[in-house]
């Protein structure tokens, strides 16, 4: 049976990253939990993903279509030695949901994710400032049309409602004042797709479009610009609480959907309080907040209390099977798989982002999840599956059906399953008797049994949980 330390380490790596290979997991567990958390929240200690190979095979990454870049992002989720960097980028992509479908300008959406990767663990103030200067966001919420005398309130409203404070913590006047503060925050017109392909855009501040009149925002009065509004927002208790709840929902346990937060209390108010405290203790530094989160008891006790997002499921299966470790021609299939499961990366459905938890699951998406995982686990030659078979074989003596099941659950997760699932898996394991991978005559059949067991496990209800 897996040690609790190993299971806890696996939990951490599923949440702070996208899972681990068994070898990685054992090495991480040997280091100690707190040290591992320090490595995770300090990703700059580790080398970046080598993009030259990705560019060689998938093309110039600044110029590819969104779905190709999404495929490359999945590769990074699987292979990055900085898993929390990728996970924070995905987190902010959930929170600051910006869809490429409106602009049809992938370079801007790509740039936005790269920004989230770069600043995702810095202060919320810096993150919101980058967000407000991000051409993809500026266009997504029409701030390019927000001018002195003719304000467009879209960005100001969502900045408060969905990106920082949440409904009920500001007034309609605050929305209008925020909008006025961001007048003139726009982007330079990029060259068009035709005739020679996409070109990136960049933030531009147009003084002539900025409303420099006096504004009163959340009780502060003055000639406020966007920077001032962000400073005020970042200092609000409501902001700390709102971001803490997002973090809890994404990293700890499923919460109701965001629109319900103004009426539904948090699942664990004390956990939210702890994260809020960490926020203010650190001046809003996400690195510090994440350190507190991962070291907390509420996090350690939250195993399998979240339904994996499609990106987590796809990348996690690849961690298990060893697929996608070098560019291959199936990359787009992987990106398409998350889309079929309800998460097209770079293209969340609305500014509210993807609905999470049980809303990931319906008859169609569950089918896609199970088919993908089972399909990936059916190849005995895939490195991860082969490693499991070899490991079972090295254990020497034939394994009883119960031992066979327990070892497989251990090597897949370690994964904890409910009684009903366990009974069904055990019935399957028992049908073949003891498993002996070292008897030549039984090796092929034994490998087949391991494959089927792995497929059944990844098809289980429990495997859908992180």
């Amino acid at each position, binding site marked *: 049976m897996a040690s609790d330390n190993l299971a806890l380490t696996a939990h951490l790596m599923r949440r702070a990253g996208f899972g681990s290979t068994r070898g990685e997991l054992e090495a991480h567990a040997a280091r100690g939990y707190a040290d591992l958390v320090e490595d995770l929240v300090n990703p700059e200690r580790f080398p970046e993903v080598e993009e030259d190979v990705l560019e*060689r095979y998938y093309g110039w990454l*600044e110029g590819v279509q969104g779905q190709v870049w999404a495929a490359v992002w999945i590769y990074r989720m699987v292979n990055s030695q900085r898993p929390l960097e990728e996970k924070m980028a995905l987190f902010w992509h959930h929170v600051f949901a910006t869809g490429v479908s409106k602009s049809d300008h992938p370079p801007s959406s790509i740039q936005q994710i790269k920004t989230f990767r770069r600043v995702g663990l810095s202060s919320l103030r810096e993150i919101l400032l980058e967000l407000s200067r991000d051409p993809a966001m500026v266009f997504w919420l029409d701030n390019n049309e927000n001018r002195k005398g003719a304000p467009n309130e879209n960005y100001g409203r969502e900045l408060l409602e969905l990106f920082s404070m949440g409904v009920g913590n500001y007034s309609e006047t605050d929305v209008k004042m925020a909008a006025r503060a961001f007048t003139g925050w726009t982007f*330079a017109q990029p060259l068009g797709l035709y005739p020679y392909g996409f*070109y990136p855009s960049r933030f531009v501040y147009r003084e002539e479009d900025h409303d420099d009149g006096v504004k009163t925002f959340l009780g502060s009065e003055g000639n406020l610009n966007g920077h001032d509004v962000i400073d005020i927002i970042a200092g609000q208790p409501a902001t700390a609480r709102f971001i803490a709840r997002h973090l809890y929902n994404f990293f700890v346990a499923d919460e109701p959907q965001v629109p319900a937060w103004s009426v539904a209390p948090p699942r664990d108010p004390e956990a939210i309080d702890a994260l809020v405290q960490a926020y203010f203790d650190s001046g809003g530094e996400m690195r510090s907040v994440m350190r507190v989160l991962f070291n907390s008891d509420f996090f350690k006790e939250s195993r399998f209390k979240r339904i994996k997002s499609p990106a987590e499921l796809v990348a996690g299966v690849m961690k298990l099977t060893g697929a996608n470790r070098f560019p291959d021609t199936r990359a787009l299939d992987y990106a398409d798989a998350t889309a079929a499961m309800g998460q097209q990366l770079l293209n969340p459905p609305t500014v509210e982002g993807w609905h999470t938890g049980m809303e990931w699951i319906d008859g169609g998406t569950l089918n896609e999840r199970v088919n993908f995982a089972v399909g990936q686990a059916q190849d005995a030659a895939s490195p991860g599956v082969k490693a499991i078979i070899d490991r079972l074989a090295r254990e020497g003596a034939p394994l009883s059906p119960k031992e066979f099941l327990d070892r497989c659950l251990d090597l897949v997760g370690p994964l904890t399953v409910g009684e009903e699932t366990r009974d069904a898996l055990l019935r399957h394991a028992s049908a073949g008797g003891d498993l002996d991978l070292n008897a030549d005559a039984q090796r092929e059949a034994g490998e087949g049994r391991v494959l089927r067991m792995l497929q059944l496990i990844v098809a289980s209800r429990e495997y859908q949980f992180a």
Partner: protein
Amino acid sequence: MGRPYAMLRAGFPYVKTVGMRRMTVNFPVDLAIGKEGVLHILCRNEEGAMVRRLTGEDEDLGSFGSLGVGDGQLRWPVSIIADREGNLFVSDEALHRISKFSPQGEFLGKWGSHGAGDGELNAPSGIAFDKDENIYVADALNHRIQLFTKDGGFLAKWGSHGAGDGQFNMPWGVAVDELGDVYVADWRNDRIQKFTGGGRFIFKFGRSGSGESEFHRPAGVTVDRDGDVYVADTGNNRVQLFNHEGRYVQKFLGDATLSKSARAYMLANPMFLRLRDMAVIDEQKLFRSPRSVRVDDQGFMYVPDYGSFRVQIYRKDVERLREDQIAAPLRSPSLLTA
């Protein structure tokens, strides 16, 4: 005609741009100059692969090939070369094979199988003919060069994985000069290596970086009749030119103007005209991630401008010198230049 003793390099002016996104060219990775100057432009991305055919005057002659794994299809094509009859050979690093097409694009055959043994391929990348029309193949993931007959018969190999002389790290482009020597763009070692046709190491040049004679993942290499070596310095978004000894001469960053097809397209689209009018156009002239460079006997240099869906064309302007026209070589630089 042999190599000149030396050259007076008058210049290497930009001539024109041909092609545009999708209408004529889509992510061009390489090109071959066929009969009567037809440009066979090899296009590749994750959503399509084909060979587009253009005249040097930017007239669209159609295309052949499609994304797939069947005969005549292309999955991850890398390099295209034309033989003396105008037949075209295309390497495919996903399918581990070389496909042969007629000048009109009819599929004629294929060879190659996946593996690491003699004559087997693992991600074949650059290909080049020698004077007998045998084919050198940069066998990228086997980190070696292999020589085949035109029909795929194994003849020779050299190289192994590493950074020493004669070793490779994912080699990409390969070229053969008129003397039969072989140049290899040693992609992940950021250098060019030169060998005899039999694989004996002669010299190397280049190192990692973005300065003169420095490379960031050089993909393409070609040699002209004067022995000048052209390198598509992909990661630095440029082409570098070296003389036959590997001495740096000059670089090309891109000078694109609107091609004939691009001009016609833009004039037919008022909104695109307006958006372009609002934008700064400086950067549109520059190369983006060029993966190949080709030259012809008239001194034209063709750069498939991968990230910009076009081909930029330059022309070399030199006076070829006899030994009696130029002073003897100097051992040291001199300030006595007046």
